[in-house]
């Protein structure tokens, strides 16, 4: 570990569980099929809702006739947009710190006009989902089709017809940045390389589709929302606001969640409708998206075209980066996180790993009549990383320098921190060079180069690609709060000693499989000094957990677990005060070892926590009259000094391109990442591997195909390709550890790392493989069609 001898890191404490690869405690119920996902729940008197959705990308609603459907078997109620508007107010997805960002009011169910294929129009409630689907087929909606904006360049043109006439044009947001002196740097360059990078629109494809059940208790005037959300307190706030309730009237419970990756950090129009419908009917209402609905209503992401430029001198010095980025979002900026954040991150992140002060950028965010886009795993990272690392490889090739060498010469030095990037983002302590060295030690580069050369003599095209990256984690209020969104940037934990000497900890972060519960237990057990198995964790319930942001943007370990650690330390102090009173000792002379109070000097056991709790709870009469024990403690945490904990890493891919078929076979993948102090290395490694494979999906397969009318034509899992086991390589993972000094534990996030750099190193590897053929491809997914077009023209 890096660092200063004066600091005692919690990972180094005796009996610390921090840094240990212990298995997650709550997995048996998932392996046995005894999890409790929202899609599994059945409540008494529950109705099922099916949404009739727009078949058009853009159309006026002329009329809706529900009469034939209303009398069908099992149908309880049918609600149109006009009626829904009286129960749920519309919203506008803007943030004030993204200056100029605009959007139009959006309703839970479309009123008068539909704006994308998949927008919900009519809600049908019936006793079963099948009956609701039967009835939906008998609803007659007459549409008058309108011209759809489906091309981001056409939609951005000054004379383009605006999707929302009141907004004047289709430009939702534009940002420009000009740092250093790009023109002077260009004049001083030996080579300037330009290239267009294309990133397809893709989506999250959580295996459990979005599922929501809302139930309204008419007696209590209270709404319980069962939703697999990453951010339950955000959901509570938004539902209250748009149903005209107080937050105290809303309880959000997340249960087990079948995958999220950002798909489930948002609230969707159909979710809002479910909440309103529960209140309107007084009955539990269940919505589970089917797969076609998931593809056309879950948020999409990426869909960027980026023109990049890099300057380089013959000695390998990179002189400037310049990007002109454009992205097509949906017809609305998604509420409340907005659809401008990905583009904003592209501007923030591009070139940020290099010591290059000259940087010019523009991004434009353009409304389209397609499914709305918003934040999905590694927001903006793969775009910035692919452009940056693709340009760096082009520069290296132009001057005949090895890709490793040009990175060594230009990556920010490991002793150069703290520092800022030209975009203004601030780095506390990153480790690009240590990560590069470690990667090379893992890979055996000379052997790979020899294998590549041998393969070429057989007419086989193998290539090796690198991608260094920076990663945004531990976001503070600068992400959303300062822009006016009521999304908590702090998290909290309450830790309690129960009467049997066991610990219960309730945390405001949530679990979608990352291991949130496991790391909360590890840090809490360490902070107090108890055995891991004596800690029980409660997550995902706004009635029982402290207020907080939840699990997204790689903040669970760095922010949520730190709050639990601080709460654990506070409870430990309270326990020691009580123990000192009971034992007629002083707190500073006592310690807690694995659930037993001991003498600090001799380690002699004095009192178990079970006995201490028994006295506190049942025999306080034996304690001094002026002593009140407090065996519960709550703490909250948010990083203060840095807006984000930036982290870094590097990836490499070795692959083979079949120049006859255009197929790419991944042979091996390597990652070195730096998440500061890992709380559980087993979980960190699997976060990285899972993230890599999501990035590989984007690199090779994943694309939402739209036709010219704005119809998504591959909205099913047979035609939308996702990575499966057979195509994926083994992935070696290693770490450099540069703890943040913003917290006691020193943890940064790791959830974006894999996805951030995977596509970039695959593209660089493909271009390395095809170098003898003089072909460069900077478009993903690298489908066989894209590869063959590049090889053979046309």
């Amino acid at each position, binding site marked *: 570990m890096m660092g200063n001898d004066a600091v005692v890191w919690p990972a180094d404490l005796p009996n610390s569980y921090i840094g240990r690869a212990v*298995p997650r405690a709550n997995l048996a119920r998932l392996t046995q*099929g005894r999890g409790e996902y929202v*899609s599994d729940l059945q409540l008494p008197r529950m109705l099922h809702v099916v949404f009739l959705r727009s078949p058009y990308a853009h159309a006026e609603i002329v009329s809706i006739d529900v009469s034939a459907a209303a009398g069908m078997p099992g149908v309880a109620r049918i609600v149109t947009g006009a009626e829904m508007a009286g129960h749920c107010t519309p919203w506008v997805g803007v943030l004030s710190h993204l200056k100029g960002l605009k959007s139009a009011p959006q309703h839970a169910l479309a009123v008068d006009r539909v704006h994308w294929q998949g927008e919900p129009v009519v809600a049908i409630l019936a006793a079963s989902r099948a009956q609701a689907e039967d009835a939906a087929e008998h609803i007659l909606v007459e549409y008058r089709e309108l011209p759809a904006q489906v091309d981001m360049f056409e939609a951005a043109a000054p004379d383009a017809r605006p999707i929302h006439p009141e907004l004047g044009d289709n430009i939702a947001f534009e940002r420009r940045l000009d740092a250093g002196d790009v023109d002077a740097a260009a004049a001083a360059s030996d080579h300037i390389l330009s290239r267009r990078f294309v990133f397809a629109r893709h989506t999250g494809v959580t295996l*459990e589709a979005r599922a929501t059940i809302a139930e309204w208790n008419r007696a209590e005037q209270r709404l319980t929302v069962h939703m697999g959300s990453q951010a339950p307190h955000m959901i509570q706030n938004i539902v209250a606001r748009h149903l005209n309730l107080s937050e105290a009237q809303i309880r959000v419970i997340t249960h087990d969640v079948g995958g999220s990756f950002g798909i489930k950090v948002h609230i969707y129009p159909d979710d809002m409708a479910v909440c309103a419908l529960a209140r309107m009917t007084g009955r539990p209402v269940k919505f589970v998206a089917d797969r076609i609905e998931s593809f056309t209503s879950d948020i999409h992401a990426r869909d960027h075209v980026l023109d990049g430029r890099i300057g380089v001198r013959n000695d390998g010095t990179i002189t400037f980066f310049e990007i002109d980025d454009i992205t097509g979002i949906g017809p609305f900026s998604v509420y409340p996180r907005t659809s401008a954040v990905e583009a904003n991150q592209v501007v923030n992140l591009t070139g940020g790993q290099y010591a290059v002060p000259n940087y010019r950028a523009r991004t434009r965010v353009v409304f389209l009549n397609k499914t709305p886009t918003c934040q999905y795993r590694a927001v903006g990272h793969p775009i910035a990383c692919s452009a940056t690392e693709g340009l760096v490889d082009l520069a290296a090739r132009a001057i005949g320098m090895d890709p490793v060498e040009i990175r060594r010469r230009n990556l920010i030095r490991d002793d150069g921190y703290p520092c800022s990037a030209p975009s203004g983002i601030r780095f506390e302590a990153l480790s690009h060079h240590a990560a590069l060295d470690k990667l090379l030690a893992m890979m055996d580069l000379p052997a790979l180069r020899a294998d590549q050369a041998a393969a070429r003599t057989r007419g086989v095209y193998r290539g090796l690609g690198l991608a260094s990256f920076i990663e945004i984690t531990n976001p503070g209020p600068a992400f959303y709060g300062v822009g006016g969104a009521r999304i908590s940037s702090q998290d909290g934990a309450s830790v309690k000693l129960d009467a049997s000497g066991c610990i219960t900890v309730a945390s405001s972060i949530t679990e979608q499989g990352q291991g949130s519960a496991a790391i909360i237990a590890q840090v809490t057990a360490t902070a107090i000094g108890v055995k891991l198995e004596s800690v029980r964790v409660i997550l995902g319930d706004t009635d029982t957990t402290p207020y907080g942001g939840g699990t997204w943007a790689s903040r669970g370990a760095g922010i949520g677990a730190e709050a639990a650690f601080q709460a654990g330390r506070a409870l430990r102090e309270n326990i020691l005060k009580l123990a000192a009173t009971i034992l007629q000792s002083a707190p500073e002379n006592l310690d807690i070892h694995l659930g037993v109070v001991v003498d600090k000097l001799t380690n002699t056991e004095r009192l178990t926590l079970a006995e201490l709790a028994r006295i506190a709870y049942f025999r306080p009469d034996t304690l001094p009259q002026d002593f009140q024990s407090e065996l519960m403690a709550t703490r909250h945490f948010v990083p203060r000094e840095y807006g984000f904990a930036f982290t870094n890493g590097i990836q490499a891919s070795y692959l083979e391109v079949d120049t006859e078929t255009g197929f790419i076979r991944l042979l091996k993948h390597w990652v070195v990442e730096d998440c500061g102090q890992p709380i559980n290395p087993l979980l960190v490694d699997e976060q990285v*591997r899972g993230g890599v494979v999501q990035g590989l999906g984007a690199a090779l397969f994943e694309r939402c195909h739209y036709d010219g009318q704005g119809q998504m034509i591959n909205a099913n899992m*047979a035609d939308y390709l996702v990575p*499966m086991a057979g195509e994926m390589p083994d992935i070696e993972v290693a770490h450099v550890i540069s703890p943040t000094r913003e917290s006691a534990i020193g943890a940064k996030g790791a959830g974006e790392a894999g996805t951030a750099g995977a596509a970039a190193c695959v593209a660089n590897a493909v271009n390395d493989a095809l170098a003898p053929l003089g072909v460069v491809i900077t478009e993903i997914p690298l489908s066989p069609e894209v590869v063959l077009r590049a090889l053979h023209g046309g």
Partner: protein
Amino acid sequence: MIAITLTVNGETIAAQVEPRTHLVDFLREQLGLTGAHLGCEHGVCGACTIRVDGAIVRGCLVLAAQADGSVVETIEGLSDSGEISDLAQAFIDRNALQCGYCTPGMLIAAQDLLLHDPSPTREAIREHLSGNYCRCTGYHAIIDAVQATARAREQA
């Protein structure tokens, strides 16, 4: 409605089902066995994998009426019988599941492989599990867990 009689996890079940009811919906909604999950509802994701008369099938591609007279085993039954307890423990030890939604189907598919090929290569494991989609893990840990189970069973 159609009357069916079948064995589910060793228990004889007599039920009335609609002709259009899929076996996985019958298991989940009428029997409350929610371990088989719905992912794609057209046979490509593997989340609803169950065992019918000893062979693994997609519960979303079989009608409940077709299962009349069959022996059906779900993840709950295979867990209670202990048949896959070592495989499940290997998944837990290796953190070969994250959200867990694919895991019941993945375990049943992996057990099917191990019954037919006790010492599969990594490539054979990847190939056999290629019909089971996992968005969380990246598959590497799953392959490790299946391989570890195969080795342990061979030594047992």
